[in-house]
Structure formats: C-alpha cells, structure tokens
C-alpha cells in the first residue's frame, strides 16, 4: 500500500470538492482496501464519505423506495419493505460475498466494485483496465470467470455484483451527484459503460462524481421474483452465471418478464429481444428454450468459458419455469403481493 492522504467528508459538497483524478471515495472499504494493498489502485487521497448524513436510509420515493448509497448490504437485504416488494434484491444481496463483508459493504460501493479478473489483480500481467493500452493478458489466459457478452478486444472482464443484476431486473436507477452539485438518476445501462477501447472507465461517474443512492420504482404487484446464482461452490463465490427475474403472469399469459443476467458481462446484462419473445405468450418449455437460445445467440465466449452458454440457457429455463408456474418455486423464488 502506498502512502495516501485520508480525509473525512462531513457533507457531499465537501466530498465533491476533495475528489479528482488522483482521489477515490471510500465507504465500506471492502474492495478498495484490497486493491490498494495489492497496488492495483493507488489513489493519493481517500475521501471517506462514511459519515456524510442522509445517505444511510431507505425512504419512500413515490410508490418506490430510495436507498441511500451508504445503506449496508446486510441492512438492505433484511429490510422488510425490500423483502416484501422487491425480494429479488434481497435474494441477490444474500447470495453475494460473506456475512462479514455484507455487514461492511455499502449500496454505492457494491455498484462500483471492480472486476475479479485474475489478470486485473496481477500487476505482472498486462491489463487495459489497470493500465490503459497495456494489453489484455486474459485473452490467452485463464478465462473461466470472464464475460461472454459486451466485451471488446481490449477487455473480457465481467462485473462481479449480484445486487446490480437484481437492480437491472427491477429497472432501478442510480442517483449520481456531479461535481457541480447537481444530481441525476440513470438507468443501469446508462450508468455502466461497456469497455470498448477504454475498459478503465467503467461508469459515467467521472472523477468527481459520487453515487448517492439507488431509486427503486414501484413494486410490481403480483410478480414472482427470483435470483438464481450458479457458482463453483455453494457460498462465497462469484457467479459463473446468474439470473434475476421479475415475472408477472396474467390470464395464463406472461404479462411482464424483466430479466437480467450476472457473471456474463461487464455490467448487469439484459436483452430486450428475449423479453419481447416472452411477453404476451403462454408459459411453455419450448418457448423458454427458444428465448434462452436467443439470449446466447450473441455470446462471444473465451475458450475457457464456452460452458456459460448452456449453463445460462438452462438456468434461465429453470428460473422461467419457476416464475411462471410450470415448476414449483424453490428457495430464492418469491411471490409478491397482488396489491402493491
């Protein structure tokens, strides 16, 4: 770890004023401290926003909720409102990390955590995300955990968050404060950038921006929600693939099918064509298989992770069967109230 300045911000204005290209925000610190010890990130200044008031609550926002950036993952997962109206979010949070880490990790930090690509973590190997223009050692390296969608020739890394996958399926928005103090809310697809030729720039936040919270839209009444994560051990492992689903069946037809996929892309992945195939149709195994085939049609796997295609297809079919009533719901699949 290199020596760095540490400042504790009392307000967002103070924090914003202290940020910049050589500074970084710290909140729970569960990821950035590891990265600093390994000198993957070497900020000259850490701006601690952990005591900024007003960022650690979960509050009503119209029919939805606004979750402050400092709300702990464990608190968010346990919140009764979340469990009742947005259970997929609670399930996703609880499938991530460990109890100790969830007790420290924050909502904003979870969104901004860095990839676990082994080459990003090894300074002896080339990584465009760590050092723009250096090259990508992952391409001909170990690729089990890499992405299959949305990659570029410069970067194959996957985003590791479970929480963000559930947020994508819920059509949540990220509240972002700009350097000038203005705030805007962005859908996840606009908040996260795809790597293209600058994989080091992962969001539109910029060096002075701060994530202040997440806005959840009104709960989807009568929906069945599921988060299914397939991984190399039963807990404390990143997703090989994951599926978040918010599905509503009305009159024997799928009225709504919001899906997002984790472990497969540089951001929570979604595919409108898959949703379009499902919505308005009666639940059916052949339909689900066709939707799954459509999903993986644009995949570009690394030789080590071609297995993610059949795994993603099968996991999606399994989740659709449970969320549409073709199969009994298992743990991780929850029905929300009919009346919101």
């Amino acid at each position: 770890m290199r020596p760095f300045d540490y400042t504790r911000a009392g307000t967002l204005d103070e924090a914003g004023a202290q940020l910049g290209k050589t500074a970084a925000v710290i909140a729970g610190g569960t990821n950035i401290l590891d990265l600093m010890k390994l000198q993957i990130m070497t900020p000259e200044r850490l701006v601690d926003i952990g005591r900024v008031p007003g960022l650690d609550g979960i509050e009503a926002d119209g029919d939805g909720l606004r979750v402050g950036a400092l709300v702990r993952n464990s608190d968010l997962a346990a919140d009764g409102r979340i469990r009742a109206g947005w259970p997929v979010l609670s399930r996703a949070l609880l499938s991530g990390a460990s109890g100790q880490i969830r007790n420290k990790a924050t909502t904003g930090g979870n969104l901004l955590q860095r990839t676990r690509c082994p080459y990003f973590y090894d300074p002896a190997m080339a990584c465009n995300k760590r050092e723009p223009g250096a090259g990508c050692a992952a391409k001909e390296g170990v690729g089990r955990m890499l992405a299959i969608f949305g990659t570029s020739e410069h970067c194959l890394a996957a985003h590791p968050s479970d929480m963000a996958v559930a947020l994508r399926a819920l059509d949540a928005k990220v509240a972002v404060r700009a350097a000038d103090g203005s705030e805007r809310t962005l859908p996840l697809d606009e908040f996260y950038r795809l790597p293209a030729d600058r994989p080091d720039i992962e969001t539109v936040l910029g060096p002075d921006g701060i994530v202040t919270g997440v806005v959840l839209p009104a709960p989807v009444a009568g929906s069945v929600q599921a988060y299914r994560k397939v991984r190399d051990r039963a807990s404390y492992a990143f997703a090989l693939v994951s599926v978040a689903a918010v599905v509503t069946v009305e009159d024997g037809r799928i009225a709504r099918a919001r899906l997002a996929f984790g472990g497969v892309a540089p951001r929570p992945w979604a595919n409108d064509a898959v949703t379009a195939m499902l919505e308005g149709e009666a639940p059916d195994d052949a339909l689900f298989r066709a939707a799954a085939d459509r999903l993986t049609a644009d995949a570009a796997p690394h030789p080590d992770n071609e297995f993610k295609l059949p795994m993603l297809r099968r996991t999606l079919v399994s989740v659709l069967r449970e969320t549409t009533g073709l199969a009994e719901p298992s743990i991780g699949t929850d029905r929300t109230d009919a009346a919101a």
Partner: protein
Amino acid sequence: MTQTFKMDEPLPRLLDETRQGLIGTPMNRPDGPLKVSGRADYAADRLPDGTAHGVLVRATITKGKVTRLDESALAGIEGVVAVLSGPNFVRNPAQGMAGESPVQPGPRVDYHGQPIALVVAETFEAARDAAQRLVVEYDDAGGAEVDPDSASEVETDDPDATGDWDEAWGRAAAKVDVTYTTPGQVSAAMEPHAALAHWDSGRLTLHGSQQMLRFNRKELADAVGVDPSEVRILSPYVGGGFGSKLGIGAEAVSAALASRDLGRPVRVVMARQTVFDAVLRRTQTSQHVRLAADADGRLLALGHDDLVSNLPEESFAEPTTNASQFTYGAAALRFQQSVARIHRTPSGSVRAPGEAVGMVVLEAAVDELAGELGMDPVELRLKNIPDTAPLTGQDYSGRRLADCLRQGAERFGWAQRPKAERDGDWLIGCGMAAAARKNMLTKAAARVRLTGAGAVVETDMTDIGTGSYAILAQIAGELLGLPESKVEVRLADTDLPGASGSGGSFGAGSTGSAVFLAARRIREQLAAQLGCEPGELTLQDGIARGANVEKSLADLVQDELVGEAEIASGEAAKSHLSAGWGAHFCEVAVHAWTGEVRVRRMLGLFDIGRVLNRKTATSQAVGGMIWGLGGALTEELHHDPRTGHIANRDLANYHVAAHADAAGRIEADFVDDRDDWANPMQSKGVGELGISGSGGAVLNAIHAAAGVRIRHLPATPDKVIAALEAAGR
C-alpha cells in the same frame, strides 16, 4: 539414559489396564481457550523491539535468471532498510523430512512466483510497498514448459507388477478401463507462513510455523550455513499445516539471513498470494485405472498408472497408487508412475499425499465396475478383501474394513437408500467408497517429569491444530494416574527431545508412544519405590497402590522422577502392513438444470485402532471428509497456460469447501479396535484417513443421482451440465 524401543512385537495392552480413564475420552484441547481468545502466540504474533519487517519478492518470469535488482524506485519510500538476495535463498520449501536445505538456485528462476529477494523495512507497509515497486531485471530463457500433458521431459518408472496381466484381463467377465484427472490443489492453511528470526552470539532462534522441528532445524541450519546445534526453532502454535509446513521455506530462511545481515530481529509473513506462489502444491494427476473381474465380482486384474508433475530436481512424486496397492487383491496387478518435469510452483505433500487423489479415482472406478457387474458396490468391495497384502505378501495388522463397510451401510441405511428419486428439480442419489491410508510409526522421543504436584511432558512435537496438547496429556495422565489438570504439555521447541513432528498421520501414534514409554519408565520407578512389580501397580487420581501399600504421589515423589524414551519402527513394519481403514457413504442432490451438486448427508466409519481422543479424532475425520468433498466438487488450481503461474491465488477464488458445501449432516465414527502391531498403544493415525476415498463417495453418488460419470475433477456445474447434455438431458 534414553530408552530406545523398537517396535518388533506387540506389547501387552497396558492402556486397557490403567485406571485414570482419560484415554479415548472426548477431552477438550487445553490450548483451546487460548486460541479462541487470541492469546495463543502464533509465529507472527511476536514483535520484539527493533524488529524489521521483510516482504518476499516474486519472480515474474517462468525460467531464466535475475540479472539486476534495481532499487532506484525505492528511493522515496521512508524506512526501507535493505533489499536482500543471494546464494542462500531457497527456491521452495524443503520436502517433508528432507533434513537438508531445499534447492538454493542463486539467481536462477525456475518458476513464475519463485521468491527471489526480500525487501526489509522499518514497517510492514513500507516493506510491502517497496517489494511491489522493486524493479527486477531478468535474462528470460523463454520456452519453459508448463503443461504436464505436453511436457517433453517425462520420467516413467518401471511398473510394480505381479501376475499375468494379459491372461487375467482376457478372461474377465466385466472390465473398466477409464482415465480420470484431478487438478492441482493447495493446503490452504488458515495461518499464512510466517517466521521471526533473531541471532544472539552466533545462535539463531526462529519462531516459525512448522510441522516437523527435528527436521526443520537441520534444514534451516544447512540453508544458512551453521551447525544444527546453533539453531533453535519454536512453533508452539501452528494454524494448520496439511503438509505445507513440513519443510523449512522461504519465509524462514530469508528471515534468518536478513536478521544475521542486519543484526536485528526480522519478521517475514507471507501474503496469501505468496503462500499460493511459493509453497508446495499438490500436483495435478492423470490416472488410468483398469479393473477386470469374473462374473462373481472377484477382481482378476487391477492396474493403476498415473502422470504427475514436479520441477526438475524435486524428488517428490505424488504416490497416487498407494492405496490401490494394498486395499484389494487381484491375480494380476500393475502400477506405474510417470513424472512430467514442468516449471510450475513445485509439488509436494498435501494432506494424504497419494490417497487423497488416488483413492478418489480407485473408488470411482470400483463403482464403475460394480455397475458393469450389476452388483452392489458394498458387496463388491467385501468380496475383494485380500488375505495378505497383494504385492508384498505381508500379513495385515488390525483391519476392520469389512466391519466398516457392513456397519457403515447399516447405519447409513444403504439398503433403503433413495434411488433415482427427485425432490423438485433436484435429483437424489447415494454413493459409497472405501477408505484406506497407510499407518506409519516414525522415530520420536519424549521426556516425562513427575513431581508430587503433577507431570510435565516435554517433546519438540508440534500441534498443528490436531490436538497434540490434549492427546499427550491424556497418555501421560492415563499412565501416571493423574487428572488432565495435573499434566502440563510443553511442545515445539528444538531444545526438547526430538519428536516425529506432525505429518503422515503418524504424530499421535509415534510421539504418543514415546510419551507412553517415558511414562512407563516412571511407573517402573514408582513400583520399585512401593516395592511391587510394575504389573501390580495401580495409579489413579494421584494415588499409587501396590503390594498392599497406598501412597499419594506427593508422598512418594520427593524430588522428581524423570522418564525419557524414544521409539522407532522395527520388525513389525516389515512383517505386517498397517493401515487405517474405513467406509464412506454419501447422499447428494444434483440440480437437473444447473448441474449444482449438494451433499445432503455423509457418514464415515473408520478403524483407527484404539481411539485416543474421541473429540479430536472425530474432528480430524470430519475435516478430512469435508476436504474430500471439496476435492470432488470445488477445489482447483488454475494455471496460466503461458507462464504456469497460479491465477487463483487467494481464498476467494481458490474454492475450499465453504460451510454451505458442508451444510448437510456429516458424521464420523469409529469401530474401536486394538491394533497390536501398530505401536505400544495399539492406535493408528487418523489425520489423513478421512480424506482418503471420501471424494469417491461423492462422485459415485452423483452417478447414482444423475446417471452421469464425472471423470475430470472437480465436478463443477459446467461439467455436470456437459454430461447431462451429452446424455440428452
């Protein structure tokens, strides 16, 4: 003065005559409260005034030479003391029981991740920063071979074989001819390797995290170029070893060298990533197993060949076929080993070297044979228990394998097990496997001192989390008639009598026997003082009785009685094949869509001779079973295909089984026996028995549940899915 006892013949079962009642009880570890309250001082917990901190620098080429260490980038870092390297630096830890320095390669680099220098600073933070900023210049030889499957240098042994293979194979009614692979693994001990070294008047003291001090002292002395008498090593607490701390390694040697150069204490703690890089791994294996049986299920031919890997110059080769050579008999046997010489982190002993990966495969192949024969797998195993050891003709010592199989099946409910059942989308099935692990007795010495107040046990034996402190107190207390509170156990200091150390599951049996013999000498002295024969002496709760006399030990022992003894292997090891035995039973659920596997319950029933401590033995067995489960389902080193470097170098990405993987009911129990040929206590090793075969039971259960054979470990969801899809499901 020291009595050396050679184990040639069985001794009377004295522990069945003594009255204290400590042996076999589930006594708590006396060191437990210290450990759970953070007061046990592990190697890195000591920080004397003036200690400098060292951080190891790793090679980032695979093969070549270090030509220059450019320190200019360190100029701005406050508190950097020195950058050290040189001819005494070691390439990797010594192999177990080497007793001499590991390879000292000078500037030569043999694998990516090799420790090549030590940066020393006033603070740990500065040392780590400097180690990361140090610029190393290399002469990169290029072209290093890192893939065992395409290695050009492969050494193949002459096969160990008996019988007419072609004849036996030719007349078989059922055959299995399969190749399984297992990936590289690591010990993943919770405590990272650490050392604190300081010199005083030419004498080196090292607080380290080591398993076998008697050997480590010689290894360290040889590495730094002094006489072993000038080296003292202390390892009172070790946070897990599993083989990774058998031999002296880079952290200890570099700390000793730096401390000598700088004239102050130096502490070196490996980062977790360095533990992966620079500590011996378990080799990956490719195993070819051939089994042939007649229509009744009697084995006619059993062949087990392997391909393992190591660096050039490393003598260790994973003895994959260990258990295959003595568990079952057949008319024709064939075992052959090949070692690919490749430039990865070198391989060495990781818990149950040989059996841990070899028995998984043997037992999976036996299950395949049962399938070919349409025979119950328990029955098939029972049919093939040989009368004498197949290759050597030795008699077996205690061997309750058949009891473990039968009683285990009964307790598990094998006959009523779920077959091809479904629970929602989960497919349910059960599998089983046998367990076997060679039992060894090695040289060990101990001293017992008895005063009126109690007894003290002294030996340089280690406790690596296994329970040595408890067991040795139980043995001494049992023989001397003292409650556990009156026995103090002092361990892990090379100034004390040299013990077996912890490794090969022989620690409790070997060093425990030395304590037993030393305490027995004291019994002889007490009997003489009472005026009775040793056989007439009764000792219980501090009271000695014999020859119609009853005296308290406080009255009987004026000053101090001392017994010292050494045990060594003898004729018994030649006349008899001694092993721990057992049977594993397992129920799994396989997700029909996602290929995930969950172990629902597991039962292991083991024969370890006399049980010394039911609690620590059970913990060892359960821990081994869970490790075996992890080996079957989750554990795998990933090596970069270009450099051979380990890509998953931390415990987030190297997947030892987590609690949720072992969330089912996992039970271990023992058939209490007396193995008279094993040692004077009639006990056998337990540490490595639980892992032997347990992964096989898991794989066989997967087959029973889902109808697919996973032959390339671990059975991660991707492989299960591929097998399901290949079967059209």
